[in-house]
């Protein structure tokens, strides 16, 4: 249990920042899990007097104060409508209503925890954080930054003509996720995917090969599908089949080293490094999409059998590409191989979701 010598309700951001420069001091967000840490804090800095507990909807953006609770975020009608329910879906599994009434956006984001639905969500939305000294930077950049002693003031979600979809897989309904997946359908019909709880912190899928391009744009639905049938998905399928256990386990092992470095996620999720990556990779290679009943897009009736087939292949290709390019690791909630399978499944499902909607 944390011990606190002094409590200070900051009267200005400057004061909060000033206090926060001392290593022994600490900003408290919602408190929540902070109480579990064993440290001794000289001064607990409370931001709750700075009016940072509101969500402001502007014409072009949502401006979310760092002291806004997860529950406020979850129940905000504007955000709900704008994100097609993705915000609610991302937050509703987090422990319980009472917990979400306490946990704050700032506290959840600042830690950049591996398990964080909140980080996955905002990264998917291409949101920005406003740091008191560091200025406005994209969440994806913030996620990779070191733990500087700045003050997170706001989160800004710029409105874009996009569609969103959020999924997570959990061993139990209110557990930490085994994997999170945020998806955005961009204006041009391209897909953007973000994966968190890998168990390392969320990251965007870098689409170097244009695999996610033009998923849902008019003729492209068919065009891309045909394209995929022609070369793309074949090549990906090939890659998938060719990828031997050796390479896979290497990549997993690499990931685990990374997870060891991420102390924050160890603290909170009890990340358990060092499972037998080799044998899990074997599992993984054997774990092709055997049960793919779930991956069928519901566009069958009106369309030709050929294009349905092509769409299927496109979805599989997206899944395979994501699984290849998103590193995963093991902890008590699942092995690296299981997570890679989830990456594949959730990526396909996200694509399928938008495809189905588009049709």
């Amino acid at each position, binding site marked *: 249990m944390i011990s*606190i010598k002094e*409590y200070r309700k900051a009267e200005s951001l400057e004061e909060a920042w000033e206090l926060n420069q001392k290593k022994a001091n600490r900003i408290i967000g919602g408190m929540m899990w902070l109480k579990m840490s064993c440290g001794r804090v000289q001064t607990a800095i409370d931001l709750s007097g700075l009016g940072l507990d509101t969500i402001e909807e502007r014409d072009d953006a949502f401006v979310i104060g760092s002291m806004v609770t997860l529950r406020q975020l979850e129940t905000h009608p504007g955000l709900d409508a704008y994100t097609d329910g993705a915000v609610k879906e991302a937050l509703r599994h987090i422990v*319980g209503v009472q*917990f979400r*009434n306490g946990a704050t956006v700032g506290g959840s984001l600042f830690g950049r925890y591996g398990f964080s639905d909140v980080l996955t969500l905002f990264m998917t939305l291409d949101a920005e954080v406003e740091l008191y000294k560091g200025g406005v930077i994209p969440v994806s950049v913030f996620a990779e930054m070191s733990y500087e002693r700045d003050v997170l003031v706001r989160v800004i979600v710029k409105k874009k003509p996009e569609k969103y979809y959020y999924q997570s897989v959990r*061993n139990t309904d209110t557990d930490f996720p085994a994997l999170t997946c945020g998806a955005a359908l961009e204006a041009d019909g391209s897909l953007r995917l973000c994966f968190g709880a890998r168990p390392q912190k969320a990251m965007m899928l870098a689409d170097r090969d244009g695999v996610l391009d033009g998923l849902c744009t008019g003729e492209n639905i068919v065009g891309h599908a045909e394209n995929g049938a022609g070369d793309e998905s074949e090549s990906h399928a090939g890659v998938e089949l060719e990828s031997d256990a050796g390479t896979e386990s290497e990549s997993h092992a690499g990931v685990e080293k990374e997870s060891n470095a991420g102390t924050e996620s160890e603290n909170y999720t009890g990340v358990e490094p060092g499972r037998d990556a080799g044998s899990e990779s074997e599992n993984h290679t054997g774990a092709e999409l055997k049960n793919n009943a779930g991956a069928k897009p519901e566009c069958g009736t009106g369309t030709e059998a050929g294009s349905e087939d092509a769409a299927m292949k496109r979805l599989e290709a997206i899944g395979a590409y994501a699984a290849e390019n998103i590193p995963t690791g093991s902890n008590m909630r699942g092995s690296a191989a299981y997570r890679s399978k989830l990456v594949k499944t959730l990526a396909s499902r996200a694509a399928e979701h938008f495809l189905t909607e588009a049709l």
Partner: protein
Amino acid sequence: MKIQFTLNGKKYGQEIRPDLLLIDLVRSLGCYSAKRGCETSNCGLCTVWLDGQPALSCSVLAARVDGREVTTLEGLQEEAAEFGAFIADQGAEQCGFCNPGFMMNALALFRDNEDPSEQEIQEYLAGNLCRCSGYEGQLRGMMNFLEWRKARRKVASEDDAADGSLSGEASDRTVAEMQYSDMAKTSAALTDGSISDRSVLNRTVDDETISDRAAAGLESGAFITEQVRRFSSDAVSQTHHEKETAQPLRTVNKAVRKKDAMQLLTGQPVYTGDLAPEDCLIVKVLRSPHANALIERIDTANAMKVPGVEVIYTWEDIPADAKRFTCAGQTYPEASPHDRLLLDRHVRYVGDPVAIVAGETEKAVDRALALIKVTYQVLTPVLDYHTALDNPVLVHPEDNWESLCPVGADNQRNLCAHDESRGGDIDKVLSECDIVLDRTYHTKAAQQTMMETFRAFCTIDAYGRLHVTSSTQIVFHCRRIVAAALGIPQSKVRVTKPRIGGGFGAKQTVVAEIFPAFVTWKTKKPSKMIYTREECMTASTPRHEMEMHVRLGAMRDGRIRGIDLYTISNTGAYGDHGPTTVGLSGHKSIPLYGKAEAFRFVSDVVYTNIMAAGAYRGYGATQGLFAVESAVNELAAELHMDPFALREMNIVREGDVMPAYYGEPNTSCALDKCLARVKKMSGWAEKFPVRRLPNGKIRAMGMGMAMQGSCISGMDVGSATLKVNEEGYYTLTIGAADMGTGCDTILAQIAAQVLECPVDAVTVFGADTDASPYDSGSYASSTTFVTGKAVEKCAQDLRERICKLGAKLLGCEKEQVEFDGGKVYVLEEEGAADAAGTNNARAAMSVNDAGAAYDADVAVVCDVSEQEKREECLEDGAAEVAEVQDERRAVEKQSRSVSLQDIVIASMCGNDIALETTYTHSSMVSPPPYMVGAAEIEVDPQTGHVKVVDFYAAVDCGTPINPNLARVQAEGGIVQGIGMALSENISYSADGHVHENSLMQYKIPARTDFGHIHVAFENSYEDGGPFGAKSIGEIVINTPLPSIADAIYQATGKRFYELPILPGQVAGE
């Protein structure tokens, strides 16, 4: 620092520490309803309102409530009573420890949302963990409350539209009527097992039967009974009993509220932690970081310097000749080996106590713990139970290790127990079988996870004796163990238990008590120890990990001819319950297959350097049934037979002798009916084995059977003391422990049935080693069966005594009189007595009835103020009393009778016939309850996620004494079984640390983790039990395990031989 805030409407200015948490602040101000169930913000027990919004008070800095408004359940008493009544009507409050948090959140939802859907309710309550109820009773109560609230509002708005002056009365009546109809429906629903689905709530009750409110009020009990009868097609035991005895079941087999329900639901301070004196020393222990080590040096000097630290004890403070003891709460001489010391130089698992620290504040104690310097000689641990037997590393090498019973234990072999039993020639039979399935199953440990962690406080009483107040299921065993640990005579120790926040077997082991006991005995100062959740998860008494090797032999036609079972059980560092749990893995699984010609059951229990195991609901049967039932399910698949059909061919029947069950006869058994019932209610014929849903998910079915015992044959002792008091009410004193299950109420129901009085006329006291008659305690499923029978016989004996004194007063022989609950009358004047009897009984009962009617009214709290209602009821009652008393006087002139009140008054003057009696009961047999369960699961084959959508169960517990409480037992047990099957994992690091050390990592099912539980009762009638009852507490956890495992096989084609089955495994190949 100083803060100003409002707590329950009252303004406070308070000087606080900056790191004080809100929960500790409100508790320090007397709001004990806020409870702590974890340290990780997971349980929801501490929920309060902060500016009207539910918040976790364990996670809010008190400093932050400056200028804000805090509300605890203490500030919502009216709402709590109003809504709580609906939970009480389901018996869903159970131990009550999670209730304040649940109530606060539910009340917040009700304010937030006028008409929440079931889905919304479930999601809103996902953060309120409950381990007893399985959440279903809570949900029913909430749905009923909302329905009632809607109706009330409708009536109110209609009244507003109509004549204002009459509206109050009109709405009263409607609401009252609604309530009674609700109660009737609920009672009916609970008695009639078929109505486990929610549709019953919509069933209409004949409105004419409740046309008059006063009449309904006064006769509500009878009215409900009537309704229950009308609906209950399944009251087999009732008809059986009534046929046998020509006596109606009036209080037994009735869904009465738990006696403590409203106290628990309104958050009263009735638990150990609430009752501890303010000035208690805080006791904590330093725990070993090593799995196996010797303490070389221990330096407490710096730690002792911390201001506020009172004492620190180490192994050096334990006398060198101290005798070892066991912490298992068992009948002496315990089967569990005596292998513990209060503090030992040899520490045997990560978490074993190294030093005891007591101080004035938690902070001081924590500081001191950090300052104790220990030098260990680290030894190689034995962590794998496969290699434990005859391992050169011995967990208990010491000379003074002692096994008091012939259980085959040998500490020089790491062997805690070994046993073999057989019937027939198993090798020959298996060699003749067409098919022999040879499979190995593994169940990991599992945590009971009662919401109230282990805790006790100790004081020195006026006689200089040690008084231990503990959350324990076993006061008498606890007294023995504490005395042994301290090396003092038992006469110096008194143990009492207040309300218990759940046990499930965990509190059948003495876990925390010995530490504060030692501190208080030494210092003569009050002390308390409250286990953290982390301690509960790492240094407690989980289920024994077991590996079971099954060989199941059958013929092609499905005839099961033999079962050969070898179980290896991992008892961990100490042997608590080790020798006894393992037996149930065979003796309570093999006998289900009554047609088998041979069996063999061999078991080894081994010591390892992990946390010691203990008693957990099911007690070995759970593990064994997972193995045997899974094997039988696999056999069904191999033979292409329906699992039900295979069971129907092979099950044990009433009247069979069960060789694998110690040769006991199967005296009562409705297992066949349970099979038929579950098959029907689950829609098995249409649903088995799988259906693929359009969304790619797979629905699948799986089933399993179970049996358990109803006591430990020839060993468990139950006792009851009954006395009748002035005004004619009874006091029942017991040594059994109500740990939330409702045994206080159930035992009172039994007494009331015999004494022909309302349940409210029996108060219950227990358990207290100084005052209670000896009872082995609440475990082994024995309370209803053994203690219940003791209560029945005790009440009969008290009847005799009442008759004896009555006869004396009437100037005749005892044989010439009869007692009807209200009076003793002379039998010979039959005609007159009949008339008089009826009237006098009415007179005697009417006061009680008025009270009961009032209580029934409270159940429904409506618009009328309680006071008004009470007056109304009492007026009605009083009028009737007066009228009937007149009548009685008139009749008494003709007939010869004397009222109970008069008998009691006479007993207090010049009397030598005690109107108090104690009865002790023990049973040479342990008639098994039976159960069949079927799981309907939904599997996402790609993510591996498995959700139990519906679970169907039929239970044969003989006569359910209280169908409400029996049902909630079943629901709660089933949900624990679901957790054990799908999410509750205990794993160890390479050096013996438990990974799942909190509720954040050890995942018990939350409300949203499953769909619905449907429970039906198929009652046999057990002559050896009170009114035909057998046990129910343990059996209910068993069937989900094999059912879910087989359903997963049906869905995915993968067989799982180990629990829990996690999504990653289901998704993998």
